[in-house]
């Protein structure tokens, strides 16, 4: 076990997979000489050379399409899209091609592609650079969408994504890159589509993913001081979605709050709460609540940006309301 930042865990994993399999290569803008806008590919060009770490023209649709074509040949491209926001420029190649080729070719062509890209607000990067669009991709059959919340999962899920024969959108988060955590040494391969109980509890389940899990764990710790026992479910994968883990948790706690960085309307929380309603309605002691972003383009001004984003205070408030609505007593 070694304490690493989320960034270092990703960097180490890319290095390990480049070393393990010569078909793995990295492609994207600014990833070589510049070592990536967020330095996830630091040192890799020097170590593996320009055939394995490929700098590209500034065109997300272009390099995503090129990566797909090379994956059809048997290579295993790991694409970096500088932020999830820029994936909009590549969305036809992702949704109409990467996601559908396996089916449209009748199972005869695989697209073992990974798209690594950070989402998330809170960095004062303004409206067009701060979005949480992962649900767009989680909506699409043929894609997998994973979203690790900590360095250990960053390693194990990235390893799994690179070895997976389906296209995987690997969602990072700008607010997580500098977070630290213990990472198991040696090869770690997560099972894609398996959620984790990030913290055990008995009174209420908070379902979250990516950076939301960090906040949820902080809130759970704080409320523990008051004797309130929160269980935190880290989805880890949005598609496939592990429904069993959060539904079983709700059967235990009878209360659920979804904490998400994206928009309330049609967001990840809508899918989670609908699933809970369908599957474990009889266990619920209160309506499922969602804590999500204000439905505005995320502002540039720092105080406005923070006001629009869901935070620990908002989550705590909704947890207390849900407990009260169910007649909870310590």
């Amino acid at each position, binding site marked *: 076990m070694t304490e690493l930042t989320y960034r270092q865990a990703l960097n180490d994993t890319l290095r390990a997979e480049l070393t393990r399999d010569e078909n793995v*290569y990295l492609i994207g803008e600014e990833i070589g000489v510049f070592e990536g806008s967020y330095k996830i590919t630091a040192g890799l060009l020097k170590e593996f050379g320009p*055939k394995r770490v490929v700098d*590209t*023209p500034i*065109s997300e*649709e*272009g*390099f*995503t*399409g*090129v*990566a*797909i*074509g*090379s*994956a*059809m*040949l*048997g*290579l295993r491209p790991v694409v970096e899209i500088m932020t999830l926001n820029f994936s909009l420029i590549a969305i*036809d*190649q992702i949704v*109409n*091609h990467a996601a559908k080729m*396996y*089916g*449209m*070719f*009748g*199972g*005869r*062509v*695989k697209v073992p592609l990974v798209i690594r890209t950070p989402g998330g607000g809170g960095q004062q990067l303004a409206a067009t650079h701060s979005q949480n669009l992962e649900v767009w991709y989680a909506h699409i*059959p*043929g894609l*997998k969408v994973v979203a690790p919340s900590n360095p250990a999962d960053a390693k194990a899920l990235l390893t799994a994504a690179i070895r997976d*024969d*389906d296209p995987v959108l690997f969602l990072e988060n700008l607010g997580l890159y500098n977070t630290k955590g213990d990472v198991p040494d040696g090869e770690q391969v997560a099972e894609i*589509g398996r959620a984790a109980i990030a913290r055990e509890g008995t009174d209420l389940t908070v379902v979250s993913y990516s950076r939301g899990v960090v906040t949820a764990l902080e809130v759970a710790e704080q409320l523990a001081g008051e004797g309130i026992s929160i269980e935190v479910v880290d989805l880890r994968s949005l*598609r*496939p*979605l*592990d*429904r*069993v883990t959060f539904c079983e948790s709700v059967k235990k706690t009878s209360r659920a709050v979804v904490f998400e960085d994206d928009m309330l309307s049609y967001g990840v929380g809508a899918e989670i709460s609908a699933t809970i309603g369908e599957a474990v309605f009889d266990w619920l002691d209160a309506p499922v609540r969602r804590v999500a972003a204000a439905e505005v383009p995320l502002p540039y001004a720092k105080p406005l940006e923070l006001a629009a984003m869901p935070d620990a205070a908002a989550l705590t408030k909704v947890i207390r309301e849900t407990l009260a609505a169910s007649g909870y007593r310590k």
Partner: protein
Amino acid sequence: MLRSTVSKSSDSEVDLLDDRDFVQLIDADGIRHPSPTIDQWVADVSDAQLADLYEDMVVVRRIDVEATALQRQGELGLWPPLLGQEASQIGSARALRDDDFIMPSYRENGVAYCRGVALDDLVRVWRGHAHGSWDPSEFRMAIPAVIIGAQTLHAVGYGVGILRDGADSAVITYFGDGATSQGDTNEAMIFAATYQAPVVFFCQNNHWAISEPVGLQATRHISERAPGFGIPSMRVDGNDVLAVMAATRIALDRAHNGGGPTYIEAVTYRMGPHTTSDDPTRYRDADELAEWKAKDPISRLEKYFESKDLLTDELKARVKAKADSVAAEFRAGCIGMEEPTIMSVFDHVTIEIDPVLERQRSQYAAYLANFEGGE
């Protein structure tokens, strides 16, 4: 000659499609024009081999006519005719090596025929039975791509892979004049030039993108764009099978020998509709079609053979017999095609079915089991 103009209101109309400005070896009257630079690339093509190309063109036209009839009879959902584009497709496809890979659009049924794709597989997608029905690695050809221009990027990715493997094969990608306006196609040219990928960009300028004339896509020759990207280009008479073969061989030779990408604009004409869902009489003049019928790729080759006393009864009989038998097999294969099983709707979404889809699959199976004779 088709004359597309920048602005019909302008007095100084620009002739966009000066058809004299292209490589041509056999003209519309069947006259062979020697070319000191191009002839060497087809010097090995004997009259007997030219007769084989003629046979290919007649057969794919026959497939095309048969398919259009099948669609009218309700046996196909849709068909994208290649009528008029036979020389572009046959001349280029027959120039390829077996280890060259093809990233087509949706109209390259003539190319697929040359590649040996089974006749029923040619039509399976258009009967609505499958999105794609042949093994790309077996025929070295991807299935039809229906998002305009997207396959050009896949071709470059494939080409980059060839370079990484250190192989000397190439990839050819087919697209139309309409696709030249798409971002993907332009981005593919940028990436191909940057990485010097062994890609042949084969644009069949058939003059129409559904109802939009080529003048709406390009105010100059399409082939003139490529040099701006750093890609050498050629403009060739797309209704001259010999010239198309020469141009494709030149491009492939560059690709096979580390010379990077080449762009070919094959000037041809879509004599039929965009697909069987289209009616071109609503937007184009009958005169224009008549002009291009006079430049037909098959009849010009017949005139050439006639001029050399080669259009023998024997050749005509041989080609007709082949076309008849292919057409019969094609029709029978289409009509006799087995329907896909209902439960296959859940196949091939991801490599392993995920739990949510597995649940939907078992629920649907249970639902069907409620009916007599259900699966």
